[in-house]
């Protein structure tokens, strides 16, 4: 008897361990599916569908051509129907796992029967099997995919009113409590200011701003700063930077010869649109159909600004390789537009339905080409001309001095020459669109007409009309379940480092589930109901107590919520590539804060373009700019697609090959090398050292000021001690070798200020460089 108890105990412990491991794995891969133990009620959307979608739908899902055994498990009709090869059997029998063939197959010991088959390299964990069993026992209830049901505002949960500022906090607090977490303290004023300043403008707060904020003790100090920063002209730049990734903006055509293109006026428009706080509805519809919308001034032609906005759909790569087949590339461009549309606005992987029905999401190949039809009407060529034949292939538009003096006054046109920009236009006669078999440009299948996947929202031509105008109406329909959610989620990811739906580019079956579904829906509806007001949304986010928490990470955080899904602290986020550059230039006061204009070519290691070029075209050699053009913000650094700016890529920027909605955030030795040795970074230290040397202040004061410029806060005593030690040791060593100081200071083209004491300047410069290399420097905490 005793041994039996021991054995039983052992077995129980073993089970617990197994379940524990399973749930850890579960939590890692499906972090938002909230289960450390078996849920009381198993939910199809949150618990079951992620498993079925990932492990079963590839062969038993929406793709009719690849469906095995004629069985589909993504619909209840399919799953409860009599089996084709065994009409007495059913894949699912509600309430009865033992009679559910599907369950019997997933637990089968016989590897020839077991599902998923071993050859698929897919497996179910015991925990997942248990979930499925319980779900069947509870009646195997299917639900439509959450993202395809229009969002609705639910009741705002109660929360600790001492903590909450707005509704965001109620939702977050509620979830946090469920997880046994409490919010962090509010961040220090210095940390908050740095966070706000980088998040809203991509620039560090100046020492003056820090002083002012620290001194201001009025109750609405924080809100005042928020309002000021939202009005700051650099807000538009910061917001635009994200959109340029989505829109795959670049300064060259891509593909191998990779000639110059002049789409930068479109980029200037994006900055303008954010600064002028265009509602998202206008931002979206002008970019998708500005050429077709009625002109606000009543004239029949679209305004030049509306036309310019449509450049969004022409930012894709264009080939200049002689000898390509015209139609092959024309189709490629339409494909790029279609895929970009899906990812940018709907967060769906449309591209998966190009060659066959989507394997996971209810997007058929026919749906794909019906959407494709909207973008298939452009009077364009696959190959307009070879290298440098054109900087803006037709259809295009000229921007003249007169335009810039009137309607397009936000364009930073630097000379009197007109600039050509690619824009959208539809052919006068509708081009018939065909399903392309296996996605091949020349394999025409059935013809299709304008349409969108009905699983999202049926496209009724009588209601919306045809063409891109109809598309826009469909997007902005209050019943469209995705438009607002996708944008709100992207903004959220921008400010919290992680979307409420982590996969900001995939709201489909294979995407992550929302960590705070009710919050996402509440925000989406609120956003739409308030006129798609972007600045209002941003303010809502940054005003929240959730946003204002300190970023201190405790042992408990690391244990219970390492990814910070439940937001019991602020996330520490490494600055995006562009802002790393901006930060150094701004803090050392050499930033040229001009907005817009043609992209610039700052310092770059020799030979990068030259070694990779075919030798043809105006971009075969890198001709570096000088003077103030060296000090423009990161977003204006020239992007030649085949050789993107190296420091940008090293800090995880997009290569602008395709639409990208999420960058990775890595931490590599190459980044350390950039921070230590890129002349642009080192030059900042040199200039700051020289200008501090010109100030009448003590060494301690200089060091402290440098610290505040770089770290955006006052140094601690211990930190000052280390910094001074370093400064002193460098000073005494450099005193012995005066030439060395000269060499160290000999960096960058920025004018030297003529400080006589080279030794001290060089030691100060070295010290500042060390500050720039601190981990905290390029982190927004």
């Amino acid at each position: 008897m005793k041994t039996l108890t021991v054995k039983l105990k052992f077995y129980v412990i073993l089970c617990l361990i197994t379940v524990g491991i399973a749930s850890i794995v579960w939590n890692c891969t499906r972090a938002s599916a909230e289960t450390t133990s078996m849920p009381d009620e198993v939910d199809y959307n949150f618990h079951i569908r992620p498993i079925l979608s990932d492990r079963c739908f590839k062969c038993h899902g929406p793709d009719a051509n690849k469906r095995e055994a004629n069985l589909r498990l993504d619909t209840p009709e399919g799953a409860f129907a009599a089996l084709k090869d065994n009409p007495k059997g059913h894949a699912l029998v509600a309430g009865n796992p033992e009679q559910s063939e599907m369950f019997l197959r997933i637990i089968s010991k016989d590897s020839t029967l077991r599902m998923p088959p071993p050859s698929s390299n897919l497996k179910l964990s015991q925990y997942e099997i248990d979930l499925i069993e319980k779900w069947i026992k509870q009646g195997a209830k299917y639900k439509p995919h959450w993202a395809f049901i229009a969002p609705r505002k639910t009741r705002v949960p109660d929360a600790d009113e001492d903590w909450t500022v707005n509704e965001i906090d109620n939702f977050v607090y509620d979830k946090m409590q469920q997880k046994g977490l409490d919010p962090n303290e509010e961040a220090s004023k210095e940390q908050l200011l740095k966070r706000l300043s980088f998040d809203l403008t991509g620039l560090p707060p100046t020492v003056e701003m820090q002083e002012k904020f620290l001194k201001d003790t009025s109750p609405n100090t924080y809100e005042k700063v928020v309002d000021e920063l939202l009005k700051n002209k650099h807000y538009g730049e910061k917001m635009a930077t994200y959109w340029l990734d989505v829109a795959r903006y670049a300064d060259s055509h891509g593909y191998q010869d990779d000639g110059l293109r002049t789409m930068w006026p479109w980029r200037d428009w994006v900055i303008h649109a954010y600064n002028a706080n265009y509602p998202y509805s206008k931002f979206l519809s002008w970019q998708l159909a500005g050429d077709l919308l009625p002109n606000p001034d009543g004239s029949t032609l679209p305004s030049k600004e509306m036309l310019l906005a449509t450049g969004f759909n022409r930012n894709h790569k264009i080939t200049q390789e002689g000898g390509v087949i015209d139609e092959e590339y024309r189709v490629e461009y339409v494909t790029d537009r279609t895929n970009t549309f899906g990812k940018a606005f709907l967060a769906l992987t449309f591209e998966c339905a190009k060659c066959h029905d989507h394997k996971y999401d209810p997007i058929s190949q026919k749906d794909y080409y019906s959407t494709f039809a909207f973008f298939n009407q452009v009077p364009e060529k696959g190959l307009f001309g070879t290298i440098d034949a054109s900087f803006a292939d037709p259809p295009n538009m000229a921007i003249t001095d007169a335009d810039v003096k009137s309607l397009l006054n936000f364009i930073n046109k630097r000379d009197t020459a007109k600039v050509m920009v690619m824009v959208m236009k539809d052919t006068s006669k509708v081009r018939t669109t065909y399903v392309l078999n296996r996605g091949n440009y020349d394999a025409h299948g059935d013809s299709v007409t304008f349409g969108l996947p009905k699983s999202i929202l049926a496209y009724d031509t009588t209601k919306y009309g045809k063409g891109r105008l109809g598309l826009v109406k469909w997007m902005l329909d209050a019943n469209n379940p995705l438009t607002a959610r996708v944008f709100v989620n992207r903004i959220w990811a921008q400010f919290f480092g992680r979307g409420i739906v982590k996969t900001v580019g995939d709201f489909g079956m294979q995407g992550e589930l929302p960590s705070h579904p009710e919050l996402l829906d509440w925000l989406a509806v609120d956003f739409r109901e308030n006129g798609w007001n972007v600045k209002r949304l941003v303010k809502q986010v940054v005003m929240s107590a959730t946003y204002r928490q300190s970023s201190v990470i405790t042992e408990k955080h690391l244990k219970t919520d390492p990814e910070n899904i439940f937001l019991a602290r602020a996330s520490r986020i490494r600055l995006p590539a562009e802002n790393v550059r901006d930060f150094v230039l701004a803090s050392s006061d050499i930033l040229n804060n001009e907005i817009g204009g043609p992209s610039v070519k700052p310092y770059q290691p020799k030979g990068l373009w030259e070694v990779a070029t075919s030798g043809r075209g105006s971009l075969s050699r890198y001709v570096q700019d000088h003077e103030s053009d060296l000090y423009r913000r990161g977003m204006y650094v020239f992007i030649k697609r085949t050789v993107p700016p190296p420091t940008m890529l090293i800090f995880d920027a997009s290569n602008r090959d395709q639409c990208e909605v999420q960058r990775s955030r890595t931490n590599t030795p190459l980044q350390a090398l950039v921070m230590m040795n890129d002349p642009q970074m080192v030059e900042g230290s040199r200039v700051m050292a020289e200008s501090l040397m010109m100030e009448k202040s003590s060494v301690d004061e200089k060091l402290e000021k440098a610290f505040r410029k770089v770290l955006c806060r006052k140094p601690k005593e211990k930190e000052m001690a280390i910094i001074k030690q370093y400064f002193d040791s460098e000073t005494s060593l450099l005193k012995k070798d005066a030439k060395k100081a000269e060499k160290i200071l000999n960096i960058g083209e920025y004018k030297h200020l003529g400080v006589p004491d080279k030794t001290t300047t060089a030691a100060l410069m070295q010290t500042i460089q060390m500050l720039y290399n601190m981990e905290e420097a390029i982190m927004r905490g």
Partner: protein
Amino acid sequence: MENEFFKNKLNITRRHFLSKSAVGLGSMALGSLLIPGLFTGEEENLAQLPLGLPHFAPKAKRVIYLFQNGAPSQLETFDYKPMLNKMAGEDLPESIRGGQRLTGMTANQTKFPLIGSYFGFKQYGQSGAWVSDMFPNMAKIVDDLCIIKTMNTEAINHDPALTFMQTGAQVGNRPSMGAWMSYGLGSENKNLPAFCVLLSRGRGNGQGVYSKLWTNGFLDSTHQGVVFSSGEDPILYLKDGEGIDKDSRRRMLDKLAELNHLGFETSGDPEVQAKVQQYEMAYRMQTAVPELTDLSKEPDHIVKMYGPECLVPGTYAANVLLARKLSESGVRFVQLYHQGWDQHGNLPNEMPLQAEDVDRASAALIMDLKQRGLLDETLVIWGGEFGRTNYCQGAFTKDNYGRDHHPRAYSIWMAGGGVKPGIVYGETDEFGYNIIKDPVHIHDFHATVMHLLGLNHEQLTYKHLGRRYRLTDVAGKLVPGIIV
């Protein structure tokens, strides 16, 4: 090196960090730049997980891919077709062309006059493989080579064809072969990236290369190919600024680590400690990499093998020698690109220049690896992105002609790393146009290369936006006929 590592006074924080963060480690472990051996002792294995282990015993540990960019003609390298000389000037029979789509450059040609090689061919070695007279050095080592005459692709233009060859898809921002290998196997050397890229330009008509070819795609950007140059700054930003010597850099890093340690105490973020380690690795690279890329100290017999050009930075020969050194030091995947093989016209004059630039060094690499006992574990690949037409592009004359792009059959060779030596694999028809035996599609080629490295091409997947991606997409069959 070790010495320098221990010079870091705050090395001790490593353990502190490890004990603190089970979480940070996972994200660090994946990087190709990171680096078994950075953690000594029991953590070593941990640092390599979950990837970094092959699926089964590998034959090859490393790859050197000598990419001949622009597509060298198979008909003037390894696929000897005397009938084309006999039929010179006659039109390609429609039955042979079989509806093959043509590039825009020859689509409007009314005639497709066949043309044979201007250069002679001879048989060499035990295998009796035919090699063009332009490649006397490669001819000498045919018994070490596995020549595949039946590579084929769907792409007919350079950009998509190159992208296909390198990433397994004609379009799209997919990870390249080297990035996949870095992701799947990690790095063997703690001071070097797992995936390195070397570029050179030839003397023939060139097509550019582009960073898309060595992109990490949707993989973490630590798997991106790191471009090395043979100039004085072999990796971008490696060299310290003027007036900064090793000691002063060390002093800065020590104080920096102290400051970061204080920062860690405040924020509690394990990423801070990871950052300290990245700076340490950068510091070690600053010594290790220039030592490695310095070719000036190569012994005479090595210079003789690769040819005097190997001492001229940026040449193909210098890059091949550098590739050997990187590979020998544990770089998983060294990818070279040599431009200039796009002979649409003037082939008899241009191609010998290209051959002259690459022949000696390519052969030297095989001999060099062999004499070092490394050929068995190093897979070397030589070839371009598609083949060239058996008919003339443009005006036809007997002693001058050009060839357009041809996707249906082209030749490459592989050597070492578990590939059968001294064989010629696959057969094309007597026109050199269609494959008649043993085709090797790009997906098959990728599957086989992965197999040689101990990876199952169907199992090495990465889930991105809801889909599990593979280098071989949804295709790819092993080619057992070329595996030892």
